[in-house]
């Protein structure tokens, strides 16, 4: 779909932004990971960055979305969707129509379903590659992006991916810049009505705040400071896990079921 020789100048980037939720007060805000995605996009040289949000528009969501405008944008594209709608078809259609080179989004939303599946479903639908957990975009040359993927424990993996591509960022990406009040309130919403597909299942769900699960205590038996340091610095080890290979789906499911029972996730 994209010409092979997509050069750096005029690199078109779309950042998918959602409405966040403050973990303590539940107030609407710019979502942290999405804001990091915007910051990543802003750090790309010669990129034309477009912000895209699909969802409903009301007072609190508008205030949250203006948080992204305050990062130095004059407008934000808004696909108006009613509450509870599945935004996937609308987003896919909009991306298909504008055909950006790079789509950046957070790993998962801070409210709503928050399953983290949207980028994957979107990539599947558009037939684009997806790279998760990005720390940086190092360069974009000749239609190929060199990406730095964040792995656990500070490790990084360098990947070369042909554009267009969907990338997701998590907390390893650079912290977002401050949102400035002036540009935020002057910014405009460019609202378009996308196709609406009502998510019947979601409508039937009952949503309640998650109960905080007790944390498993990490008991360190150490006699010396050196042992304590080693224990603190040690890699997280599964220990009690088991590796199942060549089992039938039923056996696998049973093993998972047993584990969930043991862990008191299922009762």
């Amino acid at each position, binding site marked *: 779909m994209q010409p092979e020789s997509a050069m750096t100048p005029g690199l078109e980037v779309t950042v998918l932004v959602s409405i966040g939720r403050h973990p*303590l*007060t539940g107030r609407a805000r710019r979502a942290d990971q999405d804001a990091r995605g915007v910051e990543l996009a802003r750090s790309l040289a010669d990129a034309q960055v477009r912000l895209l949000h699909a969802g409903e528009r009301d007072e609190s969501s508008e205030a949250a979305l203006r948080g992204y405008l305050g990062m*130095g944008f004059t407008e934000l594209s808004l696909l108006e969707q009613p509450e509870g709608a599945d935004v996937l078809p609308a987003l896919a259609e909009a991306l298909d129509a504008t055909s950006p080179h790079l789509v950046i989004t957070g790993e998962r939303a801070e409210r709503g379903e928050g399953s983290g599946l949207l980028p994957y479903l979107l990539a599947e639908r558009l037939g684009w590659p997806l790279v998760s957990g990005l720390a940086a975009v190092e360069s974009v040359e000749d239609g190929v992006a060199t990406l730095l993927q964040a792995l656990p424990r500070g490790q990084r993996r360098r990947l070369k991916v042909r554009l267009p591509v969907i990338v997701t960022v998590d907390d390893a990406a650079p912290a977002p810049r*401050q949102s*400035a*009040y*002036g540009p935020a*309130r*002057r910014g405009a919403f460019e609202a378009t009505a996308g196709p609406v597909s009502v998510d019947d299942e979601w409508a039937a769900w009952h949503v309640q705040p998650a109960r905080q699960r007790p944390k498993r205590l990490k008991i360190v038996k150490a006699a010396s400071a050196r042992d304590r340091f080693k224990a603190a610095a040690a890699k997280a080890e599964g220990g009690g896990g088991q590796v199942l290979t060549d089992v039938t789906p039923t056996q696998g499911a049973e093993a998972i079921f047993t584990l969930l029972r043991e862990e008191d996730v299922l009762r």
Partner: protein
Amino acid sequence: MLDILLPILIFAALALAAIGAVRRIRLWRQGRPSPVPVLRGLAAVPRRYLVDLHHVVARDKVMSNTHVATAGGFVAAMGLAIVVHGLGLAEGILGWLLLAASATMFAGSLFVARRRRDPPARLSKGPWMRLPKSLMAFSLGIFVVTLPAVGVLPAGFSQGLGSWLVALVLAGVVAWGLAELVFGMTWGGPMKHAFAGALHLAFHRRPERFSTKGGEGNRSTGLKALDLEDDQAPLGVETPSDFTWNQLLGFDACVQCGRCEAVCPAFAAGQPLNPKKLIQDMVVGMAGGSDAHYTGSPYPSPERGDRPVGEHHGTPHGPIVAPASTKDGKALVDAETLWSCTTCRACVEECPMMIEHVDAIVDMRRHLTLEEGATPGKGAEVIDNLIATDNPGGFDPGGRLNWAADLELPLMADVERAEVLLWLGDGVFDMRNQRTLRALVKVLRAAGVDFAVLGNEERDSGDVARRLGDEATFQSLARRNIATLAQYRFDCVVTCDPHSFHVLKNEYGAFYPEGQESDYPVWHHSTFINQLIEAGRLRLAPGQAARVTYHDPCYLGRYNGEYEAPRAVLQALGVELVEMQRSGYRSRCCGGGGGAPVTDIPGKQRIPDMRMGDVRETQAEQVVVGCPQCTAMFEGVVPPAGDEEVAVKDIAEMVAAALDTTPEAPPAPRDASTAQTTEEVMS
């Protein structure tokens, strides 16, 4: 010969001065409009000059007398010279008066010359160094040319052989004096301060600062509200022309005496701020050009010692701070300079020209925060926390009373009315301040005060957001706090945080909904405790043997003029109070105000370290403070090796420790106990 030359010289100087004045006024008028009462302002100048300005100048007796002689002599001499020499009316007493005036001026200028022989670092050099010579030229010149007019010198004086030569020399000397003192006033010489200063007094942005015949001026320390109604208007001050015109006029009035520099804690700490240079930079920006001609102390630089002058330049409509997109770009002022300020107001307190440095700095910060999103350090995080959780630390707003779980504090939501609304402030989340709050509660209960707290309904007062330039968040917090306060009935608000105190007392007034106004007094806890002691409601055990010193918090002292009450409380406690060299209105900042701890601009040393040095000089065992910020800053100071640690105590803790609880008598009727304690306190 002189009879012809002198009128020409005088009227030429006056004409040139008039042209210069028009040009200067046009420079000021580049600023934003700000309506002023022109005639009433001009009429108020003599009083504002002679009473209010002189009150500040008179803190330095020698300079004050010097200025009275020089300036008074000049004004009189110039006025008389126009009459005597300009219009040729030398009859009678006028000539003698002119002689007296110019002689007084000459005496004054001798003192100015002495001052300039080995000037302190805070004084600007350059053109200021020639000022005593110009003053002498004028006064001597006028004196000598007046002598023949009153007949002291023989008439032959102007007819002799060398008369042409003498006349020319005299005319030259007088011309020099006139150039510096008359049209130099409006063309930008050192005497500019007289012209701009007089008009600055007339059209000051805070006219309420000045005393009137009716009484004292108020301190007028609350920041001016930023109008957020128009959502397309750019916010804050980006370019010099974004200041109001009378602010620009104020900058132009600067006499470069450097008193602000001498008291600025950031300058002393080697942070890149010098209030005098900042004001001069604004003048440079207003007129356009570079700061190369600045002759005072430059901004300090932690790495290089001093930041060289000449690297910065500006225009009236160009940015003051180079936008972030132009990396390494320099404009008029570096952002770090603006963020070094602790808003302690020491510069404003000292300024004999009544310039409002803090207003200007906050105006420029407003642009950086609201338009550029460039609050440095942890500033952005603090602002985000304030937006999301209503407190700067990002703590759960539902946990504001966790520290007082065992105290059973009465909630306003339950009691709905109380004698005192106890405003706790964000110190509720700080373990150190929780000790202060517990002490304060103990004191209030011992005095039988009927008080209640807002609990989780309380929000940050907005102080730090406002000083960081985030006027939007401040106004949002202010409006919501005002709405909460409006629900309850109370006689007064008491708080142990001078920052909340100042904001509630002086800055919330502008945000009340139309038709409402704040109808309650706000007290700092030191004032309130002092009232309790004076009313005999507190029984104190006498005889605490401790040597203490008291640190005046900026927001209590300079912002609100409360110097007496804390000292009276300490006196009632019977402790030995030793004053630091800089106390009262000259108290040095702890470094905790204006968001300085969160923006954290590096310097050569830390401001609280310097202040604790002041404390150690007094050899006090304890330093008593009345502010959670000061407590936090001072407790963060590591004593020099070998030195005893000086205890930092809030005044409430001192009082709580001194409460007389010995006679566990059954609660007597209040009247009886009042009489008893009054005696104790007085003995």
